[in-house]
Protein backbone atom coordinates (compact mmCIF):
# COMPACT_ATOMS: atom_id res chain seq x y z
CA UNK A 1 0.00 0.00 0.00
CA UNK A 2 1.48 3.32 -1.02
CA UNK A 3 1.57 6.21 1.39
CA UNK A 4 -0.88 8.40 -0.54
CA UNK A 5 -3.56 5.80 -0.04
CA UNK A 6 -3.59 6.66 3.64
CA UNK A 7 -5.02 10.14 3.14
CA UNK A 8 -6.12 10.57 -0.48
CA UNK A 9 -9.64 10.48 -1.84
CA UNK A 10 -8.81 6.96 -2.76
CA UNK A 11 -8.88 3.36 -1.72
CA UNK A 12 -7.74 2.86 1.85
CA UNK A 13 -6.06 -0.21 3.23
CA UNK A 14 -8.57 -3.05 3.28
CA UNK A 15 -9.25 -4.12 6.82
CA UNK A 16 -9.62 -7.80 7.51
CA UNK A 17 -9.91 -10.08 10.48
CA UNK A 18 -7.55 -13.05 10.70
CA UNK A 19 -10.20 -15.19 9.03
CA UNK A 20 -10.14 -18.90 8.47
CA UNK A 21 -6.38 -18.58 8.20
CA UNK A 22 -6.08 -18.30 11.97
CA UNK A 23 -9.47 -18.25 13.62
CA UNK A 24 -11.49 -21.28 14.63
CA UNK A 25 -14.75 -19.53 13.76
CA UNK A 26 -13.62 -18.51 10.29
CA UNK A 27 -15.63 -19.68 7.32
CA UNK A 28 -13.64 -17.87 4.62
CA UNK A 29 -10.05 -16.79 4.01
CA UNK A 30 -10.64 -13.19 5.00
CA UNK A 31 -7.01 -12.08 4.78
CA UNK A 32 -6.45 -13.43 1.32
CA UNK A 33 -9.76 -11.96 0.14
CA UNK A 34 -8.65 -8.61 1.55
CA UNK A 35 -5.31 -8.83 -0.22
CA UNK A 36 -7.06 -9.63 -3.50
CA UNK A 37 -9.35 -6.63 -3.15
CA UNK A 38 -6.54 -4.32 -2.17
CA UNK A 39 -4.47 -5.39 -5.16
CA UNK A 40 -7.45 -5.07 -7.46
CA UNK A 41 -8.22 -1.56 -6.25
CA UNK A 42 -4.62 -0.34 -6.08
CA UNK A 43 -4.38 3.31 -7.12
CA UNK A 44 -8.15 3.72 -7.29
CA UNK A 45 -9.21 7.31 -6.79
CA UNK A 46 -12.82 8.15 -6.07
CA UNK A 47 -15.09 11.06 -5.12
CA UNK A 48 -14.08 10.50 -1.53
CA UNK A 49 -12.20 7.94 0.50
CA UNK A 50 -13.25 4.33 0.09
CA UNK A 51 -12.97 1.83 2.89
CA UNK A 52 -13.44 -1.90 2.70
CA UNK A 53 -13.37 -4.65 5.25
CA UNK A 54 -13.54 -8.41 5.08
CA UNK A 55 -14.59 -10.53 8.04
CA UNK A 56 -14.23 -14.28 8.04
CA UNK A 57 -17.57 -14.94 9.71
CA UNK A 58 -20.67 -13.10 10.97
CA UNK A 59 -18.97 -12.26 14.28
CA UNK A 60 -17.54 -9.57 12.08
CA UNK A 61 -14.34 -8.67 13.87
CA UNK A 62 -13.26 -6.46 10.95
CA UNK A 63 -16.34 -4.27 11.48
CA UNK A 64 -17.48 -4.64 7.88
CA UNK A 65 -20.85 -3.14 8.80
CA UNK A 66 -19.52 0.41 8.76
CA UNK A 67 -17.52 0.31 5.54
CA UNK A 68 -18.18 1.58 2.04
CA UNK A 69 -18.02 -2.06 1.01
CA UNK A 70 -18.25 -4.63 3.77
CA UNK A 71 -17.74 -8.30 3.08
CA UNK A 72 -18.72 -10.95 5.56
CA UNK A 73 -17.81 -14.58 5.09
CA UNK A 74 -20.54 -17.16 5.65
CA UNK A 75 -20.51 -20.93 5.15
CA UNK A 76 -21.89 -20.66 1.64
CA UNK A 77 -19.83 -17.70 0.45
CA UNK A 78 -19.89 -14.02 1.24
CA UNK A 79 -22.45 -11.38 2.08
CA UNK A 80 -21.87 -7.96 0.57
CA UNK A 81 -22.88 -4.75 2.33
CA UNK A 82 -22.49 -1.23 0.94
CA UNK A 83 -22.70 2.36 2.05
CA UNK A 84 -21.59 2.02 5.65
CA UNK A 85 -19.74 4.79 7.42
CA UNK A 86 -17.93 5.00 10.70
CA UNK A 87 -17.52 8.74 10.83
CA UNK A 88 -19.18 11.58 12.69
CA UNK A 89 -22.55 10.07 11.98
CA UNK A 90 -22.31 6.32 12.03
CA UNK A 91 -24.17 4.66 9.20
CA UNK A 92 -24.82 0.95 9.04
CA UNK A 93 -24.02 -0.60 5.68
CA UNK A 94 -26.96 -2.01 3.74
CA UNK A 95 -27.19 -5.57 2.51
CA UNK A 96 -26.61 -5.80 -1.21
CA UNK A 97 -26.41 -9.49 -2.00
CA UNK A 98 -24.83 -12.85 -1.34
CA UNK A 99 -22.19 -14.33 -3.60
CA UNK A 100 -20.41 -17.64 -3.60
CA UNK A 101 -16.85 -17.03 -4.80
CA UNK A 102 -13.91 -14.64 -4.39
CA UNK A 103 -14.24 -13.72 -8.06
CA UNK A 104 -17.83 -12.66 -7.53
CA UNK A 105 -16.86 -10.57 -4.51
CA UNK A 106 -14.42 -8.75 -6.76
CA UNK A 107 -16.88 -8.35 -9.59
CA UNK A 108 -19.79 -7.07 -7.50
CA UNK A 109 -17.81 -4.77 -5.27
CA UNK A 110 -15.73 -3.56 -8.21
CA UNK A 111 -18.86 -2.79 -10.22
CA UNK A 112 -20.45 -0.93 -7.33
CA UNK A 113 -17.33 1.13 -6.75
CA UNK A 114 -17.02 1.94 -10.43
CA UNK A 115 -20.64 3.11 -10.45
CA UNK A 116 -19.88 5.30 -7.45
CA UNK A 117 -16.77 6.63 -9.13
CA UNK A 118 -18.81 7.58 -12.18
CA UNK A 119 -21.83 9.04 -10.44
CA UNK A 120 -20.73 10.15 -6.99
CA UNK A 121 -20.22 13.86 -6.43
CA UNK A 122 -16.89 15.12 -5.24
CA UNK A 123 -16.67 14.62 -1.46
CA UNK A 124 -19.75 12.40 -1.43
CA UNK A 125 -19.10 9.21 0.53
CA UNK A 126 -20.87 6.03 -0.58
CA UNK A 127 -23.41 6.37 2.24
CA UNK A 128 -24.47 9.78 0.93
CA UNK A 129 -24.40 8.59 -2.66
CA UNK A 130 -26.55 5.64 -1.68
CA UNK A 131 -28.99 7.90 0.13
CA UNK A 132 -29.23 10.13 -2.92
CA UNK A 133 -29.78 7.46 -5.59
CA UNK A 134 -31.49 4.82 -3.45
CA UNK A 135 -30.77 1.15 -2.87
CA UNK A 136 -33.22 0.04 -5.56
CA UNK A 137 -31.30 1.95 -8.16
CA UNK A 138 -28.02 0.28 -7.11
CA UNK A 139 -29.65 -3.14 -7.10
CA UNK A 140 -31.01 -2.47 -10.57
CA UNK A 141 -27.54 -1.64 -11.85
CA UNK A 142 -25.50 -4.24 -10.01
CA UNK A 143 -27.80 -7.21 -9.42
CA UNK A 144 -30.45 -7.13 -12.13
CA UNK A 145 -28.34 -5.93 -15.02
CA UNK A 146 -25.69 -8.61 -15.38
CA UNK A 147 -24.24 -7.16 -18.56
CA UNK A 148 -24.07 -3.70 -17.03
CA UNK A 149 -22.35 -5.06 -13.94
CA UNK A 150 -19.75 -6.89 -16.00
CA UNK A 151 -19.18 -3.77 -18.07
CA UNK A 152 -18.66 -1.63 -14.96
CA UNK A 153 -16.26 -4.16 -13.54
CA UNK A 154 -14.34 -4.41 -16.81
CA UNK A 155 -14.14 -0.62 -16.99
CA UNK A 156 -12.72 -0.42 -13.48
CA UNK A 157 -10.08 -3.04 -14.21
CA UNK A 158 -9.18 -1.34 -17.47
CA UNK A 159 -8.74 2.01 -15.72
CA UNK A 160 -6.55 0.56 -13.00
CA UNK A 161 -4.48 -1.84 -15.03
CA UNK A 162 -1.56 0.52 -15.65
CA UNK A 163 -1.37 1.81 -12.10
CA UNK A 164 2.21 2.39 -11.08
CA UNK A 165 3.57 2.45 -7.59
CA UNK A 166 4.65 6.08 -7.27
CA UNK A 167 7.17 5.13 -4.60
CA UNK A 168 8.88 2.56 -6.79
CA UNK A 169 10.35 5.32 -8.95
CA UNK A 170 11.86 6.91 -5.85
CA UNK A 171 14.03 3.80 -5.48
CA UNK A 172 15.65 4.25 -8.86
CA UNK A 173 19.34 5.26 -8.78
CA UNK A 174 18.64 8.53 -10.58
CA UNK A 175 16.16 9.52 -7.88
CA UNK A 176 18.33 8.45 -4.97
CA UNK A 177 21.29 10.39 -6.29
CA UNK A 178 19.79 13.74 -5.32
CA UNK A 179 20.13 12.83 -1.63
CA UNK A 180 23.81 11.93 -1.81
CA UNK A 181 26.06 14.81 -0.75
CA UNK A 182 28.65 16.13 -3.18
CA UNK A 183 32.16 16.05 -1.71
CA UNK A 184 34.50 18.90 -2.57
CA UNK A 185 38.23 18.34 -2.07
CA UNK A 186 40.12 20.94 -0.08
Amino acid at each position, binding site marked *: MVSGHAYGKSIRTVKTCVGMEHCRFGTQLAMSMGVKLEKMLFDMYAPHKVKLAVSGCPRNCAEAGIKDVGIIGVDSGYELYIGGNGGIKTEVAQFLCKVTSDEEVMEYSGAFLQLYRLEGWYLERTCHYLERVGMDYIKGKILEDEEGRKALYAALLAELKDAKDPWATSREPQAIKQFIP*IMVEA
Partner: protein
Amino acid sequence: MSNWKLICKLEDIPQLGSRVVHWPERGKVAVFRSSDDEVFAMHDKCPHKGGPLSQGIVHGKRVTCPLHGWNIGLDDGKAVAPDVGGCKTFEVKVENGEVFMAA
Protein backbone atom coordinates in the same frame (compact mmCIF):
# COMPACT_ATOMS: atom_id res chain seq x y z
CA MET B 1 37.04 35.60 -7.00
CA SER B 2 38.48 33.93 -10.00
CA ASN B 3 38.87 30.48 -8.53
CA TRP B 4 35.84 28.36 -9.38
CA LYS B 5 35.28 24.81 -8.28
CA LEU B 6 33.27 22.40 -10.37
CA ILE B 7 30.40 21.06 -8.25
CA CYS B 8 28.18 18.99 -10.52
CA LYS B 9 26.10 19.12 -13.65
CA LEU B 10 23.06 21.35 -13.61
CA GLU B 11 20.89 18.30 -14.27
CA ASP B 12 22.25 16.67 -11.11
CA ILE B 13 20.24 19.18 -9.09
CA PRO B 14 16.48 18.60 -9.29
CA GLN B 15 14.47 21.59 -10.42
CA LEU B 16 12.90 23.30 -7.39
CA GLY B 17 15.25 21.14 -5.33
CA SER B 18 18.79 21.12 -4.09
CA ARG B 19 21.96 19.16 -3.47
CA VAL B 20 24.14 19.27 -0.40
CA VAL B 21 27.82 19.98 -0.93
CA HIS B 22 30.36 19.11 1.75
CA TRP B 23 33.01 21.74 1.53
CA PRO B 24 35.89 21.30 3.99
CA GLU B 25 36.11 24.86 5.36
CA ARG B 26 32.46 25.74 4.87
CA GLY B 27 30.70 22.67 6.14
CA LYS B 28 27.42 21.82 4.44
CA VAL B 29 26.37 24.09 1.62
CA ALA B 30 22.99 23.76 -0.05
CA VAL B 31 22.94 24.39 -3.79
CA PHE B 32 19.43 25.18 -5.06
CA ARG B 33 18.01 25.14 -8.56
CA SER B 34 14.96 27.25 -9.30
CA SER B 35 12.23 26.49 -11.81
CA ASP B 36 13.97 28.68 -14.40
CA ASP B 37 17.32 26.99 -13.82
CA GLU B 38 18.94 29.68 -11.74
CA VAL B 39 21.35 28.27 -9.18
CA PHE B 40 22.01 29.58 -5.66
CA ALA B 41 24.19 28.43 -2.79
CA MET B 42 24.17 29.10 0.93
CA HIS B 43 24.94 27.43 4.20
CA ASP B 44 22.56 24.52 4.74
CA LYS B 45 21.57 25.98 8.07
CA CYS B 46 18.47 28.02 8.71
CA PRO B 47 19.10 31.29 10.61
CA HIS B 48 16.26 30.39 12.94
CA LYS B 49 17.28 27.10 14.58
CA GLY B 50 19.61 25.58 12.09
CA GLY B 51 17.06 23.64 10.01
CA PRO B 52 18.32 21.91 6.85
CA LEU B 53 17.32 24.36 4.13
CA SER B 54 18.34 21.85 1.46
CA GLN B 55 15.26 19.85 2.46
CA GLY B 56 12.98 22.87 2.21
CA ILE B 57 10.51 23.76 -0.50
CA VAL B 58 11.90 26.00 -3.22
CA HIS B 59 9.51 28.53 -4.76
CA GLY B 60 10.45 31.49 -6.89
CA LYS B 61 13.62 32.88 -5.39
CA ARG B 62 12.93 31.60 -1.92
CA VAL B 63 13.21 28.45 0.10
CA THR B 64 10.90 27.60 2.98
CA CYS B 65 12.63 25.93 5.88
CA PRO B 66 11.17 22.49 6.64
CA LEU B 67 11.30 23.00 10.40
CA HIS B 68 9.24 26.08 11.20
CA GLY B 69 8.48 27.59 7.83
CA TRP B 70 10.77 30.59 7.69
CA ASN B 71 11.29 31.88 4.18
CA ILE B 72 14.84 32.56 3.13
CA GLY B 73 15.75 34.58 0.03
CA LEU B 74 17.87 32.46 -2.25
CA ASP B 75 19.81 35.35 -3.71
CA ASP B 76 20.64 37.23 -0.50
CA GLY B 77 20.30 34.48 2.11
CA LYS B 78 18.15 36.79 4.24
CA ALA B 79 15.08 35.73 6.13
CA VAL B 80 11.93 37.29 4.72
CA ALA B 81 10.17 39.72 7.13
CA PRO B 82 8.84 39.50 9.77
CA ASP B 83 11.69 37.06 10.47
CA VAL B 84 15.18 38.38 10.78
CA GLY B 85 18.61 36.89 10.25
CA GLY B 86 20.45 35.37 7.38
CA CYS B 87 22.65 32.64 5.99
CA LYS B 88 25.98 33.09 4.37
CA THR B 89 25.60 32.80 0.60
CA PHE B 90 28.22 31.67 -1.88
CA GLU B 91 28.74 32.71 -5.45
CA VAL B 92 27.74 30.13 -8.03
CA LYS B 93 27.55 30.11 -11.80
CA VAL B 94 26.39 27.77 -14.50
CA GLU B 95 28.49 27.28 -17.61
CA ASN B 96 27.73 24.78 -20.35
CA GLY B 97 25.39 22.93 -18.08
CA GLU B 98 27.94 22.67 -15.26
CA VAL B 99 27.67 24.29 -11.86
CA PHE B 100 30.68 26.05 -10.32
CA MET B 101 31.07 27.57 -6.88
CA ALA B 102 33.49 30.35 -6.03
CA ALA B 103 36.32 29.08 -3.87
